[in-house]
């Protein structure tokens, strides 16, 4: 079986220590996760977590079932095969001088990204999109010397009216 990226979304109780339980499970069972993002959901008291897991389908099914066994985890779905919207947000601080600034701004425009901070020697760029888009922008900006990057990791929802 081949290793691929799987997107799991989970509804988890918003209680102290829940993230610790989840992280502990990933570590202890040697599951390979690429990103994990948590925030509140539409249900009061429940958070929605998106995690990207790398593995073959049997391994990922193990991850899903082990997660579901945690008492504070209400539901976990592997939505990889479903029609989904995925987004990631990144903040990128890049070195910018008088001579490179306009070129950077052009690139930022093409990606429909935003400049959120301007400083004498640098620009901070905010970009949202899927990982490919973020990676491409980051790749281009590397030519100008990227100082700092902060990425949220993937969040995802299935498309359409169902849940």
């Amino acid at each position, binding site marked *: 079986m081949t290793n691929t990226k799987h997107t799991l979304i989970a509804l*988890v*109780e918003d209680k*102290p*220590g829940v993230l*610790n*339980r989840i992280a*502990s*499970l990933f570590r*202890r069972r040697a599951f390979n996760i690429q990103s994990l993002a948590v925030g509140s959901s539409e249900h009061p008291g429940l958070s929605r977590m998106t995690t990207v897991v790398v593995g073959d389908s*049997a391994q990922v*099914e*193990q991850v899903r*079932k*082990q997660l*579901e*066994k*945690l*008492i*504070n*985890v*209400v*539901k976990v779905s592997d939505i990889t095969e479903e029609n989904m919207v995925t987004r990631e947000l990144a903040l990128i601080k890049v070195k910018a001088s008088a001579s490179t600034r306009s070129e950077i701004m052009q690139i930022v425009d093409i990606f429909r990204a935003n400049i959120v901070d301007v400083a004498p020697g640098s620009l901070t760029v905010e970009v949202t999109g899927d990982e490919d888009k973020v990676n491409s922008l980051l790749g281009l900006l590397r030519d100008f010397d990227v100082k700092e990057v902060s990425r949220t990791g993937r969040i995802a929802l299935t498309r359409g009216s169902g849940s």
Partner: protein
Amino acid sequence: MKKTGAQILCESLIKEGVEVIYGIIGGAVLPIYDTLPQYPQLRHILVRHEQGAAHAADGYARVTHKAGVCIATSGPGATNLVTGIACAYMDSAPMVAITGQVARPFIGKDAFQEIDITGITIPIVKHNYLVTDVAELAKTVKEAFHIAQTGRPGPVLIDIPRDVQQEQTDFVYPDKIDLPGYKIVSRGHPAQIKKAAKLINEAEQPVIIAGRGIIISQAYDEFKEFAEKAQLPVAHTLLGLGSFPGNHILDLGMLGMHGTGCANMAVQNADLLIAIGMRFDDRATGNTGEFAPNARVIHIDIDPAEIGKNIPTEIPVVGDIKSVLTALNEVIERREHVDWLSQIEQWRYEYPSLEIRQSDELLPQYIVHRIYEATQGDALVVTGVGQNQMWAARYFVYTKPNSIISGGGLGPMGFELPAAMGVKIGCPEKMVWCVAGDGGFQMTIQELATITQENIAVKIAIMNNGYLGMVRQWQELFYGRRYVDTKLWNPDFVKIAEAYDIPGIKVKRREEVIPAIQKAMDYPGAFLIDFLIEPEENIYPIVPPGESLARFFEPSKPEVLGGQF
């Protein structure tokens, strides 16, 4: 009327039907202990080490099917529980562990005896709680017992800060539980049951692997009917011994690393494996890549995460075993497997599992078998870890559920004595034999004091080989006989027992075995026999680690056996 947290805890335990708690007092649980005399229904067993409290609660839980309760103070008391909690976790035993914690204002300040026990135990509990508000306490206890005792059972820890124990609130024990993330599938999916039945009906060389899940689900009658109706031979995991009569014609004994030749050959040659309430532990499967190469696999278990975890499964049936087997019994056909059973009889003959070699030496196999005969099998055997455990598993014929209690998954030396205490307290009318290793016994030997103080009549049989025997055996077989740090200097166990006010005798010769066992049985209280067994006796067969189950060694034929593959 308002009650303190300590009172609420005690009353909640009583509501849950708790009768016995095992523990040791300390500063962070003083309010709870101070309250105990108000509740004489709660018998407290004062152990000598918190590991003993946890193993005792575990043993008690396994034989009573009720959560065992242990209690410890914060910091070192709590960390001492860890081995026992891990053992209960690995073997799916229901347990509620209660720990005191420093008062809330001190949490996070590295206060005296402050340890993050909820953090430490996350990977070894089914769930745990830190109670930060006394108003949550009753609800927490209710949830803890529910979680510990239902579905796949396991340990739940409740950490209660000292000031929460003293705080007051109204006591209302909830009758509902609201756990949106806790779902138990109790009935197997009808479509899966149908598919499983089809495979069973069509199989020519079927084998059941029976795990402890059958015992947990108390499905003995259903299981026996199942195996007999479709004439399915039964191999057991270590913890599955006793789920089916060991003297039944369909019984093959234990499979795995020290399994019987017959069970291992049957599993390796099966065309269908029906795994019930077991989890394909590597000690049971040997090399998974070469495990049962021709078999299709049905796996019945209440825990969906066990399906496909170690062995690919064709037909999973997730549900409570009793209900799944009841449903299966309706749809499977009455079958006979004449050729298959005669092949199995052939293996049984070729690899006799109860054969004990002729010798004047004092052999542990002989001792265990004599205990079996003297008790007519009507005893509960609690084992240590190592060779003694395997001899106990193999040379006693287990015909009843819960007749062997062993720390199978964790394999913690020192399990034997405290677990035997819990088993005896759980089943006071039963004869309880603790089969101990001389090494393991010394890890929890202090519980002899508990036994005397609480008058717990367990019979202790030390398999005294003067070695950390199982490891010595590995050194002998796999490390060129280099016995590094496995030889033990031992104290005189009989004198030690006497110092604890427990009578005992030393047995050096074969002829002394039966009288000694009889003497122990006739004595009304606890009794210790120090069996000075043949020091370098091995347990056979043995499948070398990482090898296929078909490649087991036997003593008489030291070359690798198993000609089928």
